């Protein structure tokens, strides 16, 4: 029977941050350590708001961080049609990245994002990351068959939302959750 790691705490995030410098200048909250975390094959959630004010949740399937610090979140165009439409209409975006083993969670926010074409590297990264995520879910939470269905997507229907994060927040459950990662 697999066991969970000790749950992460919001205080852990501050300690990690002290050891890792900004990777893309002071305006971008990403550090090298966070860049690795975002692309490590974990749970990715995308939130936006429709022009009529209704908030929209969706699961994403992969993430790439570019050399200039933009975050590319890879979604299924079919399942995330409303999300993509809202982003295309200029709505802001939030993305939460969570590691199931210890519940470490980070939320990124950007005032604007854009819908861009999928690249071959996006497809490869998504296959690698979703495969790892399914393995973890199958080890800790679900039967293998369900884990694979849960992370499943249609490769021919991938789409990408690209944004430069304005802010990052600790979202690991516990006291101090919600704090901005400023330094």
């Amino acid at each position, binding site marked *: 029977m697999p066991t969970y790691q000790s749950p992460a705490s919001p205080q852990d995030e501050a300690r990690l941050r002290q050891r890792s410098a900004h990777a893309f200048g002071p305006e971008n909250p990403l550090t090298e350590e966070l860049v690795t975390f975002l692309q490590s094959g974990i749970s990715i959630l*995308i939130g936006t708001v429709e022009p009529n004010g209704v*908030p*929209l949740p969706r699961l994403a399937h992969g993430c790439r961080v570019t050399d200039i610090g933009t975050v590319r979140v890879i979604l299924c165009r079919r399942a995330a049609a409303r999300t993509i439409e809202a982003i295309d209409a200029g709505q802001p975006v939030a993305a939460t990245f969570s590691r199931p083993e210890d519940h470490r969670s980070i939320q990124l926010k950007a005032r604007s994002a854009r819908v861009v074409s999928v690249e071959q590297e996006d497809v490869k990264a998504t296959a690698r990351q979703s495969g790892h995520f399914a393995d973890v879910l199958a080890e800790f939470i*679900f039967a293998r068959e369900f884990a694979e*269905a*849960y992370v499943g*997507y249609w490769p021919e229907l991938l789409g990408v939302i690209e944004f430069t994060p304005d802010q990052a927040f600790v979202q690991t459950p516990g006291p101090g959750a919600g704090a901005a990662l400023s330094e």
Partner: protein
Amino acid sequence: MAATPISLAPLRRSLEGIVAAVLATRDRAGTPNISMISQVHYVDDQHVALSYQFFNKTRRNLLETRLASVEVADPLTNATHRLTLEYLETQSAGPVFEEMRAKLAGIASHTGMAGVFRLLGADIFRVTDIEAVPSHLLPEPTNPRDPLKALRLSSARLRSCSDLTALFDATVDCLTGQFGVEHCMILMLDPDAERFFTLVSRGYAASGIGSEILLGEGIIGVAARERVPIRINHMTADYRYGAAIRESVIGSGIEWQAATEIPFPGLDSPSSQLAIPIMVQDKVFGVLFVESEQPMRFWHDDEDAMAVLADVLGACISSLSDCEVDIPEVETERAPPPIARSVTVRHFTRDDSVFLDHDYLIKGVAGAILWLLLRQHATTGRTEFTTRELRLDSTLRLPQHSENLDARLVLLRNRLNERSAPIRLEKSGRGKLRLCVAGGVTLESVGAETPLSV
């Protein structure tokens, strides 16, 4: 175009708290927030409750805009739906809160978050829209369980019972035979003693008849207090029984407690538990309790069916307990004949506990009843008694409005049978009892004597 009426009924499996839900909110300025939420609880066909555990950005957004959307997935088929929600209120007590608190304790334990997850409130939402989200679907599993059929057969069997002993036995037999439950018991509430007594059980190494659970302990106590079924599908220490009773009654003296304790038969490491209150005429009679070592053993349809079974049981208890009017004797109930031997019966007035030689038998009202019958037998030679005279006896201190005398007699009779005692209680007709004593009985009272109404 007329709007399609909202119905959450087809999504109840997605609201079991097995697959974490994805919750989106926004603030007044329109900035979104996105997070996982461990519970979206089914309240009724148009309402859900979300667990409020921390005062965070999600919480602030909800209070500001009262708007949210949540994505939920069926834990078997992965069918995914997005619900649009309107926040109505937060409840921090009551049935919905307690159901969620118990379920959250199970989820927290299952996900390594025991001690971090704590329910502060149940946020109640109206569902204003339901939308299917394309997902990779798994086939609907073929389900050999048929709770409705099990309920129909069980209900017929319960209604055919002619006395409480048969009724309680039939209930646990139906739970194991028809519902396929591995471990179950019926507990009777004694509100004056502020505890439950196990009346009957199935599936445990020892029956545990007469064992006690303090009121308010674990899911049995919560189900009775809130008058609502409580279901946990993952093991959690928060609602575990084990040695809890011993720890809770230190006030009465550890040694004394140990001497008069019948071990509670519950599983050491249950993974699924369901406690359903048994109502008799608007009062809590007791609790139907089922458990399993298998996680996710009891689903909402099991809960629905067993809740109706508990209702049928309550109705049958009510009709069979109404024995003020004697009716012609049709059949007498025969307990196994007592084995002849001499015995010293000791009665301790401090809690009406009764020992046969040095072995603890029973305490409380059931103990007082046995002591009363034995005293009367010793002084007058009587063997025939009526439940009516027991009800009217002031020394028994039967609670005026919830006496459950017949159930207490079932408990006493079962304990005597289980101990192979040289004393038996037989039902000799409606409202009639026969005391059978084989061999010499010596009576000893310890502590201040209680006057008997001989």
